[in-house]
């Protein structure tokens, strides 16, 4: 009987860990391949980073922190997931679609060039 309870508890624990892991970065797995491979048209442009910084401060900093370090439930954008695992296309896809079940709204109301400028700024944070 004890063994049976232990097996159930272990299974439940593993499922919880799996669910947490998926919740943290599951959106990356949802990005279609053509979006994943999109190239940032502003890549390498210093002006785009500056413009993206202004957009970030206006729309994103209240949740993600002034330096994108994260605030309480709102994640840091300086993590390896954002800076290394996610491509520019992945971040653009996330901005367009949001992750609404997790509280991240869609930012499709911003014009596409501004979203790419924002991506330029986010990707500049690791440098």
């Amino acid at each position, binding site marked *: 009987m004890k063994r049976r309870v232990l097996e159930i508890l272990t299974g439940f624990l593993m499922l919880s860990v799996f669910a947490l892991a998926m919740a943290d970065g599951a959106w990356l797995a949802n990005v279609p391949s053509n979006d994943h491979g999109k190239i940032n048209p502003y890549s390498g442009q*210093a*002006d*785009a980073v*500056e*413009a*993206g910084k*202004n*957009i970030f401060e*206006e*729309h994103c900093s*209240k*949740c993600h922190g002034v330096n994108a370090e994260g605030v309480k439930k709102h994640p840091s954008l300086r993590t390896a997931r954002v800076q290394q695992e996610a491509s520019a296309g992945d971040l653009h896809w996330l901005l*367009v*679609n*949001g*992750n*609404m*079940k997790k*509280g*991240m*709204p*869609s930012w*499709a*109301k*911003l*014009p*596409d*060039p*501004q979203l790419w*400028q924002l991506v330029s700024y986010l990707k500049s944070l690791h440098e």
Partner: protein
Amino acid sequence: MKRIVTISIVVAAFTSGIALAQERPYFVTYSHEMEEPGNLEIESFNVVGKPKGGNRFLGSNLEFEYGATAWWTSELYLDGQITADESTIFTGFRWENRIRPLMREHWINPVFYVEYENTSADKALREVVGHDGNDDLLEPNRDARSDVEREMELKLILGSNYHGWNISENFIGEKNLTAEPWEFGYAWAISRPLKLAASAHRCTFCAERWQAGVEMYGGLGDWHSFGLNQTSHYFGPTVNWSAPGGTTISFSPQFGLNDYSIGHLYRFGISYEIEQVFGRLRRSGQ
């Protein structure tokens, strides 16, 4: 008229110092875009008009729009109006909820809208349904305010963003909770920022802070007489400007398209967004 203009300027001057938002420049049409979760937006939308054979009026909404989640926005309206040579009155309240059923951005994005309203002598004209028209605004305030309307309004909001353009369409059904029939209406609007990319430097009047477009709306009759017969329709250009760190001001002159409509309407609005409002309250309480 002088009194209405004076009050309008005072309201604008009072609220313009506290406004912050990036909104579409629409007054009647809803886009599919929701309030960001945790944010509270305070908005003042106003309309000035003069019905044929009636007195000039200023209809006004004060709105409190809260992003409950990324897919659910709830909003409370307080309505009032001033009619020249008559009176200034509080006309009632509305409570609306907007739900976005699809969790990703698509070519066309639907939003479901449900509203309960309890108003009388309303002149805010935030929607036109049924056979609403010029003559509805001729009844004196002292008579009109005794006719309290308790109504349920449903909307299907469809919105698309394409190459910087926003295209929004609304289909409206409104039911007075007494024995009156369903009334129908529509609204659509298109707008675009004057510049799509942001400037690298901070600026006040740069083109990306301006949005311009057109808006059209009108009635489609009721359950027993669906169609365009004896319905009013309006069309006009619309523009807004978002100041840095703050104010969004919107303006639209709108024109009645037939004799059943009011000749001209002048709409203006101001909005202010408090980001993460409950977080601020918690911090101020500590």
